[in-house]
């Protein structure tokens, strides 16, 4: 009788534990539909400062507290950058990205994902990071072959001023 009871208890425990174990890696979760891939537009880039530095006059310097005296006054804030992405000739993303940081002196950042069907795509990315009103400072246009589940990254290299697709 005791053995029967113990067996019953054990069966209940094993069943509970088995249920827990099963849910530890099942069911699966699909981030993106079958037969699609992702184009990820992401980079971190700071545009120029908003204005030119200005030399302070001797009177202005004298007015500043002694520990804060300086010769030049430079605006710290950066300009926003403007980014566009076209996929197969269709504009999928246009954004003016504000600088980060409380004083607006940090770089702008973009992190945007686009799910596309696998296959050949024509990608065009454009960036404006100066004071000009139209036109672009940097751009790249390329055709890529997107494999299912591929994660293709569009990155920007401020050092070389060029876009990287990989």
């Amino acid at each position: 009788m005791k053995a029967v009871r113990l067996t019953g208890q054990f069966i209940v425990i094993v069943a509970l534990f088995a249920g827990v174990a099963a849910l530890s890696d099942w069911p699966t979760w699909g981030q993106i539909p079958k037969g699609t891939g992702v184009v990820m537009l992401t980079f971190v880039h700071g545009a120029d400062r908003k204005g030119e530095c200005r030399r302070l006059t001797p009177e202005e310097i004298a007015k500043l507290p002694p520990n804060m005296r300086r010769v030049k006054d430079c605006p710290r804030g950066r300009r926003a950058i403007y980014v566009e992405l076209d996929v197969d000739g269709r504009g999928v993303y246009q954004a003016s990205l504000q600088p980060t940081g409380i004083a607006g002196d940090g770089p702008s950042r973009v992190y945007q994902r686009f799910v596309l069907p696998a296959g050949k795509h024509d990608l065009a990315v454009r960036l404006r990071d100066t004071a000009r009103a139209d036109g672009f400072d940097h751009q790249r246009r390329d055709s890529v072959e997107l494999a299912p589940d591929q994660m293709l990254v569009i990155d920007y290299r401020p050092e070389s001023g060029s876009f990287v697709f990989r």
Partner: protein
Amino acid sequence: MNVIRKVLRAGFELIERPFDRLFSPSLNPLAQLGALGFFFFWIVAVSGIYLFIFFDTGIDRAYQSVEYISRDQWFHAGVMRSFHRYASDLMVVMVAVHLLREFSLDHYRGVRWFSWFTGLPIIWLLYVSGITGYWLVWDKLAQFVALVSSELLDWLPIFGEPIARNFIATGTLTSRFFSLMVFMHVAVPLFLLFIMWVHILRISRPKVNPPRTLALMSLAALLAVSIWRPALSQGPADLAKVPNNVGLDWFYLPLYPLTELWGNGAVWAFLGAFSLMIALMPWLPPLRRARAAVIDLDHCNGCARCAEDCPYEAIRLVPRTDKLPFPTQAEVNPTLCVSCGICVGSCPSSTPFRRTDELKTGIDLPEYSLRELRERVMDTAAGLSGPGRVLVLACEHGAAAGRLGDTVVMPCVAMAPPSLIDFILSRDLADGVVVAGCAESACYNRLGVQWTEQRFAAERDPYLRARVPRERIAMVWASALAASRAETEIAEFAERVAAMPPKRLRSPLPVSSPTRQPKALETERGAT
């Protein structure tokens, strides 16, 4: 809140009672959830240390080292990996059920706010532990976890550069972040253990070890499950690919799909709202609390029984402040006292045989004194008639709390000193006494049922005296939702009592306040 709690309690009853029957109340896993939590923690800790021997903490070789554990060394390290994962998952299950159950028992308000409140950091730390653990394998799932976690963190305006960029093919992946995860996966569980310790600080005699049978069965079950379904990796991480169709651990990662379905902001809002709700619940609304127990020094000899029996660590013994010749006296901390009255039942000065004007005891409830308890007993007994007069002493949280007529209700049946039963039967106030408390594995005051049983069995001071006819006492342990079962048991008992020959009444001896019996106390200590 009340309605939700009642519904939940009814739900728990449906599972708890069959479990009581299958496992016996003392083995019922549902009454051992906290203890099981500690037990699983130790399993996770030991198996984690074992895995660390084989684990390579560099991001390039971590995956290979885990594969080696699960494939080449499956029969020991692989089994340990499964233990590590499944015991962690069981901790989540345990925490969830424990939280709901304590809530359903109304164990989250009043002085219990402390345990409830400290449960919140436990949840967060448990999840951080689990999530960083999945990171370390650096398989497809780890990549998914890394990506989604960092996107979630990037939503908060803390980091200058999106940390998610570390986990896509930008060429910026460094082992810096990975090393941080390895560190966190060791440090956070240690901190978790510390908070688990804080969590039970204000609980006297917390159950931190499950009964041995239950522990052994759990270990055996873990072994069986580990062999049936070993924990495995899901292919190496590949940053050039989307970690698509990964098998998720639905205990640790249920919110991860939601970051995509709802968005990161909504997930943070959910986490914030959940945490806020848990944190505020003890005061929404607060529990109305009767005034705390008070000591009457003239009747306290510092025997410490009340301090031993209080389930809430509310009583301490302090050096004597009056001139009585005892070294110590009891002191109640009113912020911890729930006025359960268990201490009244444990005090050797609580003897209803005294004359009314003398009926004082060492420790008493201001809003429900021992004297009032005796008066209610005598009034109620006066209304009993017929053969088989049965008086019911009921806990206000148990099945008999709502009975009318022949019932005296009190905050916990352990408030009734055993001498009260003796008093009722020897003074012929009734032919039988029913002590009706909560369900055995779900005592509202945690220890009331246990103390009552031990006092009646003469295993715990104060004893129910040997002269009290045991066949005239019945204990009914049934929750408020099992009122009809309690009713049947009480009726059956009344029939049995009615059939008994009349009591041979011995004139009660004048009871002097029993002094401490060192020998009895020895055995009591040995038994607990």
